[in-house]
């Protein structure tokens, strides 16, 4: 091997140094957990030809192809690109955005998670920051994608209203609600807004569609699931539109960029700097 290897540059391009000298595990960019059949074929061919004939599924919906030799890196990149497969990133930057299947496919989904993951990825993927920054999008309170373990987690929800004229008093929603937010009072369905967690189960279960749900995003900040574990915190009301969501995400990332020390995760920055300034900034972004 001629010259010195720029490991940082390779890491940025998704190539992670293995313990075996001269070998790299290549991380791929699997946005929202989706790959086309064509993508998979290409990955399979590359793993067969340049790797050891297998792939590793990462904890964040990614695929890595281990045992890529240093001298093959350019060729591997080119072959993957032909099949529409892009490398992921490692190191101090925004990582691939993950997502569950969401409302396009899942009966429980409250938002189009894949569409949102693509938008977020397009907007933020690879952005240089003091440390890694992870986005995750989950479609509903079932939380299959574990929103709160991300630096910025987004969870689909619904703000619900009942059309009492359409209600047939079947009481299905009262039992469908797992938060105990619904009851019958004076022959009419009543909602305790303090208990409602925006899960939308009343909307989904209502046989006559008397419940209406306005979809929105429940955002959590500062999740961490590594050496230390913290659950991301929801500091804002449910967000109803993408524009506001992106303003809030911009403000959160901006705060991280401005205040974090190199190698410091978002949560630790929030703790060190204090949440007050952060709350102020995201509230401003939320207000518009």
């Amino acid at each position, binding site marked *: 091997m001629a010259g010195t290897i720029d490991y940082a540059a390779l890491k940025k391009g998704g190539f992670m140094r293995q313990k075996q000298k001269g070998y790299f595990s290549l991380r791929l960019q699997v946005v929202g957990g989706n790959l086309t059949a064509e993508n998979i074929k290409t990955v399979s061919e590359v793993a067969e030809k340049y790797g050891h004939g297998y792939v590793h599924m990462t904890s964040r919906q990614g695929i890595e192809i281990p045992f890529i030799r240093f001298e093959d890196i350019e060729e591997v990149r080119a072959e993957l690109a032909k099949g529409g497969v892009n490398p992921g990133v490692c190191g101090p930057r925004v990582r691939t955005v993950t997502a569950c299947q969401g409302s396009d496919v899942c009966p429980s989904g409250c938002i189009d998670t894949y569409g949102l993951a693509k938008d977020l990825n397009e907007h933020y993927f690879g952005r240089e920051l003091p440390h890694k920054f992870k986005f995750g999008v989950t479609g509903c309170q079932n939380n299959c994608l574990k929103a709160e373990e991300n630096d910025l987690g987004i969870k689909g929800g619904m703000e619900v209203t009942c059309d009492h004229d359409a209600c047939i008093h079947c009481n299905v929603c009262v039992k469908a609600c797992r938060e105990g937010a619904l009851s019958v009072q004076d022959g009419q369905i009543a909602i305790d807004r303090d208990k409602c967690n925006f899960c939308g189960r009343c909307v989904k*279960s209502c046989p006559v569609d008397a419940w209406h749900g306005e979809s929105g995003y429940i955002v959590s900040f500062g999740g961490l699931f590594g050496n230390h574990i913290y659950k991301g915190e929801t500091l804002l009301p449910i967000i109803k539109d993408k524009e506001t969501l992106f303003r809030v995400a911009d403000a959160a990332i901006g705060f991280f960029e401005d205040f974090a020390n190199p190698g410091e995760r978002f949560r630790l920055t929030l703790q060190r700097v204090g949440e007050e300034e952060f709350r102020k900034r995201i509230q401003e972004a939320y207000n518009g």
Partner: protein
Amino acid sequence: MAEISFDEQVDITDKVCPLTFVKAKVSLEELDEGQILAIRMNDGEPVQNVPRSIKEEGHQILKLEDNEDGTYTLYVKKVGD
């Protein structure tokens, strides 16, 4: 409240998810369009989920009654053949 009259009944309290729904669905298949099935189910997961699954199958839910013995009865009108 007036009792709802029904054509057939099925007890799914002996099943656990997802067989609760399967048993209810099989019973519905045996009905003619417009007939009403009374489904007795347990509190908890069945009553949280079975009504919604039946709605998603396209049938018409009429009423969920609390039997006050830890079970509920769901009245469903069959839609479609």
